[in-house]
């Protein structure tokens, strides 16, 4: 059973400036009594007291202003940041796509990066080699796949990262807003594949500023504000309170029909 449970979790970042990060202060600071200053590094509370329970089949959109803690929350859900207080338990194979595909080696070829990323996501070398042609075709990178990654544009890197995660059937898919860097044509193509993937994979958490993309992929939403969960509930309901207007209002009836939605706001009971 794929699930993520988070109990009263907080994520605090210590900020070490050049002085506090050296041994000098840690060692000398203890000798000769206290100097009025605080010995500890200042802390940024990125997430505060988060309690969540995500289950298989959940497709959650993350909304909130810049710096509200969306990316940090995604990283906590990926298991990269373990909560400094509280606890998090992740059950399932996680595949994250963060920050426009940073975390790839710019000096090696796209092909090598595909293999390494696949290995990180728990695949074997052989399995990845079989998928390379398919990924190349999907990402439309062509001969660029043999080029070092530093020659790629941001959009091309995102294509590569998306190509890898969508080809390996992850159980938990975590997407950051960076995937908006690709062009409209590819977005269309990726959307179909993502929708398909989300149906198959257990769990999706997707941070985005694009209503359209959120509506397409998610059915519920979490509104993050200053490191707290401000609201959790149905997507339409959360988007309405976050934006101050109903995002479905201006949509054409065709789009709504495609998404299988009613033109009027349904009375969705809030989920805890």
């Amino acid at each position, binding site marked *: 059973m794929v699930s993520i*449970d988070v*109990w*009263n979790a907080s994520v605090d*970042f*210590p900020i*070490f400036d050049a002085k506090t*990060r*050296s*041994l*000098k202060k*840690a060692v000398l600071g203890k000798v000769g009594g206290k100097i009025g200053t605080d010995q500890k590094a200042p802390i940024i509370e990125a997430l505060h007291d988060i*309690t969540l329970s995500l289950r298989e089949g959940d497709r959650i959109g993350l909304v909130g202003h810049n710096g509200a803690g969306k990316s940090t929350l995604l*990283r906590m859900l*990926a*298991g*990269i*940041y*373990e*909560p*400094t207080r509280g*606890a998090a*338990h992740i059950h399932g194979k*996680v595949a*994250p796509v*963060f*920050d426009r595909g*940073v*975390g790839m*080696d710019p*000096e*090696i070829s796209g092909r*090598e990066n595909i*293999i*390494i*990323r696949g*290995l*990180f*996501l728990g695949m*074997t*070398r052989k399995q990845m080699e079989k998928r390379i042609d398919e990924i190349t075709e999907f990402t439309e990178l062509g001969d660029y796949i043999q080029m070092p990654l530093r020659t790629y544009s941001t959009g091309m890197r995102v294509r590569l990262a998306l190509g890898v995660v969508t080809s390996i059937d992850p159980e938990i898919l975590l997407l950051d807003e960076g995937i908006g860097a690709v062009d409209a044509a590819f977005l269309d193509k990726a959307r179909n594949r993502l929708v398909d993937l989300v149906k198959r994979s257990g769990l999706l958490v997707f941070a985005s500023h694009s209503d359209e993309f959120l509506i397409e992929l998610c059915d519920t939403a979490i509104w993050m504000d200053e490191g707290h969960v401000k609201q959790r509930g149905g997507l339409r309901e959360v988007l309405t309170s976050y934006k101050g207007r109903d995002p479905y209002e201006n949509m054409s009836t065709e789009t709504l029909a495609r998404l299988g939605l009613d033109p009027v706001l349904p009375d969705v009971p809030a989920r805890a």
Partner: protein
Amino acid sequence: MTPVPPATVAPTRSFARAYDDIRRGVAQRELWAHLGWQDIKQRYRRSVLGPLWITISMGVTAIGLGILYAVLFKHPLPVFLPYVTTGFIVWNFINGCLTEGMSTFITNEGLIKHLPAPLTVYALRTVWRQTLMFAHNLVVYVIMVAIYFGAIDHRYQMEIPNGQIHPGLGLWSLTAIPAFAVLALNGVWLTLLIGIISTRYRDIPQVINSVIQLAFYLTPIVWSPDDLFGSGGANRIWAKVLFQFNPLYHFVQVLRAPLIGQHVDWWSWATVGGITVLGWALALLAMRNYRARVSYWV
């Protein structure tokens, strides 16, 4: 009501999580082996000879230093050149584990922040890279021993009148294999432990860098213990102390001695064994307490 995590979820700071990290890290053999090999290829990308440069530069250094110090200390070249070469190769491995181990997590910052993976993967990547370098350098050793085989395949002395009598190469030289395994095992704990410390305190790499060069000269690599003990130096107490308390000497010796048929004290093996156990205990403790902090610190 405050929800409480079930008892089955191990707290972040627990030995269970530390073991789990190491176990999963080791299991991802394909990943760290690939990354380690990638590092080597990357370093020599676009050079015609590629990783062969590792072998060449080792050969040049070993021969140069070997001849220089053989002349300085008046040692016979056929026994001294294999001695310096092998010592230098072993030292390079230890030095690599130390200097690249301490910056393991700092250099892998991008990956640590973007992909969830056990920390052990990065430690093994570093040690595996050093192992591959060692394998390349071993070519120099093989050539050297092939040339001077006649000088070290029987009992010999480095310094003729009073030198230590060495047993010479034999079947027992195969103890080099477990010796290397033990050295690599030590490389892993060293990388985990000082990797974590250096990530938190960025002065530590500078401290180690400034001491490592001195350690090289204090450890018998380009000179032999006979230079201290032999020819009337037998009562130099301080020289004996220098050996007993220099762990690096014991680490070099357990691997170098069988490779060139030299005498190895049981004491060296005991020290290496003790440090292995102690080091792993410290590394596990560091992993228990600070494993989860590394992604915050990088």
